[in-house]
């Protein structure tokens, strides 16, 4: 046995064991998709044509809302003209669905008071003032979440407590004086400093002037979807439909504010293309069924390979185990670092890939058997057949990779999840075939089989070709 084979075998085993141990000790486990643990999956599509910028902004808003709900592993991705939102394990499903699909609104709210969200004394005072003795928990220490207005109570006509976009400042705000639809245009320009010009339509001009007159010298908050984006001070009583917002903006801040205002003028409305809620029991049932079915399938395949290929069958089982360990590490890593969940389609892709993985073994073994039948010694057959077998494996796997790549690029949702795992398992298959299966087969052929091919399931050497 050439030293390089032994080295490659050891390296793969060490690498696999190390990555598995690393993943396990870090406590990473695969993130399960909605269909496997229950939760909510929503596919949204803008009702009208929107610009790329606006679309991204709308997705950003959805992200903020999901963060506010507090889901452990949300997955929000833009796929072409759709947004796919997956909230595995979310508790109040109907509320989550309602919240996500809402249209974000821009509101101008006069600022009544500002506060430091980290100061418990201020928080208690504000809670008292806002509750006006409604519920009896006065005197208790108020936490930030008690004080802030939850998204479902953030009404145009209500007094609310919200945070600024940085999260550093809290605002107590009056009912909205006007909303974003009245904005006609907003743009950031540089005139000695960065400023934002806003123009209103006739109705907006009137409303804005009313607000300015009532709140002269005070701040007005520009609130997009429950976040105070900016809170400029009103320095005039009459604007006639043209306002200039200035401050110590840098270029990025000014442009961002202009974008917020423009978005407010033309909020992206979403249509719910596909809404799925999966109860936790159903999700767990599917997961359990999938795992049991997968294990039974694996056991059957293992048994068949052992029966047919004897010792080589054992090699096939070891290859499968190695692939499985690598796959587990990758799936856990993807879940941890990318928040990418293992979906039902993905899991099915993996079960399906067992066939492809085992096939690489079969292609190689059949070649070996053929050569042995022609009278070649087992060890030289094992060495010699790999080239031809691996070439077949590469070309066939390449077709799978092309398929996976096309599907991943051009489709969404279910099909895409499937393609991803098909691609991953195919790559693992190539890796394991070359660096693990081959050296192990050669090792087995040399050490354990010797010249007794019966151990490989080649029953009769004399039954060769030349008769």
């Amino acid at each position, binding site marked *: 046995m050439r030293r390089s084979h032994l080295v490659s075998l050891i390296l793969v085993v060490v690498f696999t064991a190390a990555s598995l141990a690393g993943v396990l000790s870090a406590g990473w486990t695969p993130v399960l998709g909605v269909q496997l643990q229950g939760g909510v999956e929503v596919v949204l599509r803008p009702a009208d044509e929107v610009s790329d910028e606006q679309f991204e902004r709308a997705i950003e808003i959805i992200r903020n809302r999901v963060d506010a709900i507090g889901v452990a592993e949300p997955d929000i991705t833009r796929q072409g003209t759709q947004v796919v939102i997956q909230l595995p394990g979310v508790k109040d499903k109907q509320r989550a669905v309602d919240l996500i699909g809402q249209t974000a609104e821009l509101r101008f709210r006069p600022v009544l008071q500002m506060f430091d969200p980290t100061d418990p004394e201020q928080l208690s005072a504000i809670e008292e003032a806002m509750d006006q003795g409604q519920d009896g928990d006065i005197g208790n220490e108020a936490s930030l979440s008690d004080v802030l207005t939850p998204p479902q109570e953030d009404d145009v006509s209500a007094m609310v407590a919200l945070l600024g976009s940085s999260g550093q400042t809290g605002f107590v705000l009056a009912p909205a004086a006007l909303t974003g639809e009245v904005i006609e245009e907003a743009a950031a320009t540089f005139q000695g400093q960065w400023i934002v010009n806003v123009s209103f339509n006739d109705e907006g001009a009137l409303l804005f002037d009313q607000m300015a007159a009532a709140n002269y010298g005070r701040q007005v908050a520009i609130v997009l979807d429950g976040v105070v984006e900016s809170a400029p001070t009103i320095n005039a009583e009459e604007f006639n439909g043209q306002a200039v917002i200035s401050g110590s903006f840098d270029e990025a801040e000014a442009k961002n504010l202009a974008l917020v205002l423009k978005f407010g003028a033309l909020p992206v409305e979403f249509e719910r293309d596909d809404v799925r809620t999966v109860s936790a029991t159903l999700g767990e049932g599917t997961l359990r069924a999938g795992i049991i079915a997968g294990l039974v399938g694996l056991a059957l395949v293992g048994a068949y390979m052992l029966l047919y290929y004897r010792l080589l069958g054992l090699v096939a089982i070891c290859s499968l185990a190695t692939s499985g360990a690598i796959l587990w590490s990758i799936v856990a890593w993807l879940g941890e670092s990318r928040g990418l969940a293992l979906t039902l389609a993905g899991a099915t892709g993996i079960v399906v890939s067992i066939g492809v993985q085992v096939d690489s073994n079969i292609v190689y073994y059949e070649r070996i058997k053929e050569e042995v039948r022609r009278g070649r010694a087992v060890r030289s057959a094992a060495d010699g057949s790999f080239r031809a077998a691996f070439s077949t494996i590469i070309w066939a796997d390449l077709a799978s990779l092309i398929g996976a790549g096309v599907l991943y690029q051009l489709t969404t949702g*279910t099909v895409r999840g499937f393609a991803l795992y098909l691609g991953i398992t195919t790559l693992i298959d190539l890796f394991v075939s070359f660096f693990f299966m081959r050296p192990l087969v050669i090792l087995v052929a040399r050490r354990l089989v010797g010249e007794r091919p019966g151990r490989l399931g080649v029953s009769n050497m004399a039954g060769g070709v030349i008769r």
Partner: protein
Amino acid sequence: MNFSLKAMYRGENSWDFVGVSRRVLMGSAIAVLVCVAAIFIRGLNLGIEFEGGGVWEIPALSEVTTDDIRDAASDVGMGDARVQRISGGEAIFRVRGEPAASESAESVVSALAKAAGVDSETISTRTVSPSFGDEVAGKARRALVVFLILIALYLTLRFEWKMALGALIAVAHDIAFTVGIYAIFQFETSPATVVAFLTIMGYSLYDTIVVFDRVKDNERSLSAKSRMTYPDLANVSLNQVVMRSVNTSITSVLPVLSLLIVGSFILGASSLQEFAIALLVGLLVGSYSSLFVAMPIVSELKNRESHWAEQQRSVEVLGTSNAIEDAAAVLAADRYDRSSPPRPRKKGRKR
């Protein structure tokens, strides 16, 4: 042509694949025609992802009947809802329909929960807008076209266009057959099923490539003086890979079968079923078509090339048709003796 498992196991099988191909192809063509007719006449039973509407899965108390659930469904404006009891351990009902526009998502769920005697949290729902399916189908169609073009290019570059054509015909055969089964038995077609159809194409191609690869490999190892005809070459190659095909089919089918039987029938996870039926059918047809559709077509095409036609004629003039065993021997001799000078002919080579 002797069929014996033992011979197969020992690699002594010598079947005349190409010889029977005309009849087999005829049978395949008829089967495909029936399937295509079924697709056009019966149509597919499309899932809500393609048609829009809603589906509710309701775990229920054991005394609840289908009628109870149906009554609850018609109360929320789903008089024409399809109510099914899904087999499995516990009673799970599946309702498919389109609730009245006046009903909110919550009111539908709570009405069904009340009828089933369970908490509304335990109900799984899915509602899909009618336009969604068009989008899914459109994307799948586009992906399919791109995929086929790329594969055709790939096979042409790697092998030759005749093989690309053979492979694509085999793939079309597999897809038509599988989709036809769905039309005939009216299984529900969902995006999951589309995934399965696409996987089948992948499998079928994979299988076909393994066969082609072997044929090419054998063709390369033929010496210039060899008189072998293309059908003989194809036959030998097919015999060499048939055990691989059978074994791979078995090891691929076992997990899928387990998914179907253990997962969806015994444990009642109906969502696994959508994939598994299509995969099962497709896998079997895919292995079949690589051996009996793709290669015979290529063989037919190749035999018209001047070189191979010449070979065919000289064999016919000599009046000796190669037995497959002999062809295999020729091939084996050519393969291993390429580097050495020509040797005296062996016993058993009849030319």
